[in-house]
């Protein structure tokens, strides 16, 4: 993992001291709320429905056990004993006192974690593939470049007052687990015929009220020019991005208004004019950071498929977990373990302080002290030996963190919704829980196969409903909450936006509607076909009929 040096520590310490002064000035009335708001937002402090919320960054989803223990400590000491992992590799605390925020930030700084720019109109937490550095299908490790981008974006003097928030995601694998096509800048790493690394850069993706899939702005950027190229994209956005209407201020709007060709022309012109002025990233710095991401001290082991098959046959529950929650590792004899935060009835992404501590211990015992956070609100232990899998599974079972449902129906993504959020129109968490409680039979879940469900409590789309295979959007109609369904969304390398199924449904009717959609899919699917593939083949009509046809859930809004 990346470790701070004296300069990183110094900057974060100065940031905390500055925020402490700002909070003091606000408390003394020297700053108005209007002036203070962007300052607290850029330190991750939101004002929600009932209390202040603090959003903390887990840069590119990489977390050390000591950091997770600190998260647990903060949950216990300053919050109500739990934290919430989000779709952007952040953890949120929902019950923070403003006057304690500087103290929390100081605690976090002691383990090299910050909330800098986790909110506000600036470059947010850099996100990436939770399997970075361990995935078998990886072309190149994105973490080095994520860290370069992290440092580059922290307190950027030119880009701290952008028209709107700005999200960057990087994938080093052709199988995109980082949803780069729905980010303001998405970066795909490639290798050319000489084996050299280059970056395909996409711009203008995003969800919210006007969802867009990103366009490729340049097929190949050399590593030493990556920051300079990103700077040109940001500069053109800073100059041309709309500032007249908050709902039209994201880069996706200006890219689509002027067209990707015009946007590219402006970026290339700035890049050509400026690139000789911008220092290239020296190889020594890339090497210094890369050294932090050297592989851990792997044991020399072989894969033990036969042994695992034997254990699975003896204990089907272990077999199911192995099949759904464990992914292939690039190192022989090792495995990647997904830790489900979606037990039946759980709030997606929520985890108690006790479980955080327990998981930190398991990471120390079985995963070189490292944990990953994915954008689907689950956690990952990235370096587990296959011979430890059974013991780890038993321990996770005890903690209720071993629900074998990764990418299955009950692995629902949900925003916090109207239970917490001041922007929400509807309660998304109860819908997610209803689905989790309806679809509990492990064999049935496995029979249905991979399917993503995403729930957002309003059109701001924090639950990424547009890119769920089944998307659920909470709306408010005349003071009542309804839920609109979309089908066919995806955030992977073949990203697509979902199509609206029909009128909104009452909360109680949502699980029945999901059941009807699933039954329809099971009827129509070809051998081995996933839900999304079937949907793309047959279109929306059969599903409309299944949900709204005679004798089915009634449409009410």
């Amino acid at each position, binding site marked *: 993992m990346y470790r701070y040096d004296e*300069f990183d520590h110094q900057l974060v310490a*100065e940031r905390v001291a500055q925020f402490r002064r700002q909070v003091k000035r606000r408390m003394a009335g020297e700053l108005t709320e209007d*002036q203070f708001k962007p300052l607290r937002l850029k330190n991750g402090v939101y004002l929600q429905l009932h209390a202040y919320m603090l959003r903390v960054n887990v840069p590119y989803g990489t977390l050390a056990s000591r950091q997770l223990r600190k998260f647990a400590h903060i949950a216990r000491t300053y919050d109500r004993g739990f934290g919430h992992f989000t779709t952007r590799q952040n953890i949120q605390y929902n019950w923070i006192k403003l006057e304690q925020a500087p103290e929390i930030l100081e605690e976090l700084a002691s383990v090299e974690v910050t909330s800098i720019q986790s909110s506000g109109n600036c470059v947010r937490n850099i996100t990436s593939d939770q399997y970075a550095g361990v995935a078998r299908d990886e072309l190149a490790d994105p973490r080095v470049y994520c860290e370069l981008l992290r*440092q580059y974006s922290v307190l950027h*003097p*030119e*880009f701290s007052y952008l028209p709107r928030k700005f999200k960057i995601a990087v994938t080093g694998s052709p199988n995109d687990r980082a949803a780069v096509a729905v980010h303001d800048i998405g970066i795909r790493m490639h290798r050319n015929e000489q084996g050299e690394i280059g970056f395909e850069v996409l711009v203008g993706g995003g969800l919210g009220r006007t969802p867009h899939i990103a366009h490729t702005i340049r097929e190949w950027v050399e590593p030493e020019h990556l920051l300079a190229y990103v700077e040109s994209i940001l500069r053109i956005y800073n*100059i041309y991005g709309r*500032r007249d209407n908050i709902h039209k201020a994201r880069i996706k709007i200006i890219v689509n208004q002027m067209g990707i060709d015009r946007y590219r022309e402006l970026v290339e012109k700035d890049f050509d004019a400026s690139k000789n*002025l911008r220092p290239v990233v020296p190889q020594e710095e890339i090497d210094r950071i890369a050294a932090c991401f050297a592989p851990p001290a792997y044991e020399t082991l072989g894969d033990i498929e036969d042994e695992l098959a034997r254990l699975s046959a003896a204990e089907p529950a272990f077999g199911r977990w192995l099949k759904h929650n464990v992914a292939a590792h690039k190192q022989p004899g090792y495995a990647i373990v997904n830790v489900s935060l979606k037990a039946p009835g759980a709030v997606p992404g929520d985890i108690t302080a006790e479980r955080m501590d327990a998981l930190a211990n398991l990471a120390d015992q079985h995963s070189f002290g490292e944990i990953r956070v994915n954008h689907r609100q689950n956690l990952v232990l990235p370096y587990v030996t296959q011979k430890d899998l059974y013991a780890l599974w038993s321990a996770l079972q005890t903690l209720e963190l071993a629900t074998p449902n990764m990418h299955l129906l009950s692995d629902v993504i949900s925003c916090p919704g109207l239970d917490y959020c001041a922007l929400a129109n509807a309660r998304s968490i109860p819908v997610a829980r209803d689905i989790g409680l309806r679809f509990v039979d492990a064999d049935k879940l496995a029979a249905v196969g991979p399917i993503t469900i995403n729930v957002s409590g309003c059109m701001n789309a924090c639950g990424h409903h547009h890119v769920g295979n089944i998307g659920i959007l909470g709306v408010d109609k005349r003071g009542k909450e309804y839920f609109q369904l979309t089908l066919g969304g995806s955030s992977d390398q073949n990203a697509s936006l979902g199509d609206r199924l029909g009128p909104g449904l009452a909360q109680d009717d949502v699980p029945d509607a999901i059941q009807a959609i699933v039954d329809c899919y099971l009827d129509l699917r070809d051998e081995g076909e996933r839900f999304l593939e079937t949907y793309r083949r047959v279109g929306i009509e059969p599903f409309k009929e299944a949900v709204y046809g005679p004798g089915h859930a009634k449409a009410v809004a």
Partner: protein
Amino acid sequence: VTALIKNGELIEDEFIDASGAEVLPPRGPVLVGLEQWQAHREALLERGDRLGIKLRSDQQPEAIENDVDHFELIALEFPKFRDGRAYSYARILRERYGYSKELRAVGDVLLEQLHFMIRCGFDAFVISDPDPLGAYRAATADYSVWYQPTGDGRPTAMQLRRRRAGEGSP
């Protein structure tokens, strides 16, 4: 108190702000708007006095790319503190066009923003505060470490690391 601070010192504003005025003052350093400059370029140059230009946040510096040598002062306006366009304009003027005279931030300039502005190339600020100089000094002392290379020449964390690594070797 509203005061002009340049390079960390209180100074008198010698420029008469005639941007938007119908008639220019007969003599003395004058600050004009882009429209005035474009309409009365020759007359302004013949005046023989120091000349400043003020750009609104919707006026890109490209409009004066070939003229920057004529100006002793360029003022960039922040209509609202949230409008960050002038940060980019400042860097373009300094780093790309090589403008080296006074670059002044005017309008809604918050103390919290001064360090960003300095790094982008601003050297003069109009500040409203009971103790403008004290407030300026406090606000610009917040940070000593920077990650981003800009034209202000301050060493970045990356450069400091390399320097230190260099010291370590024989």
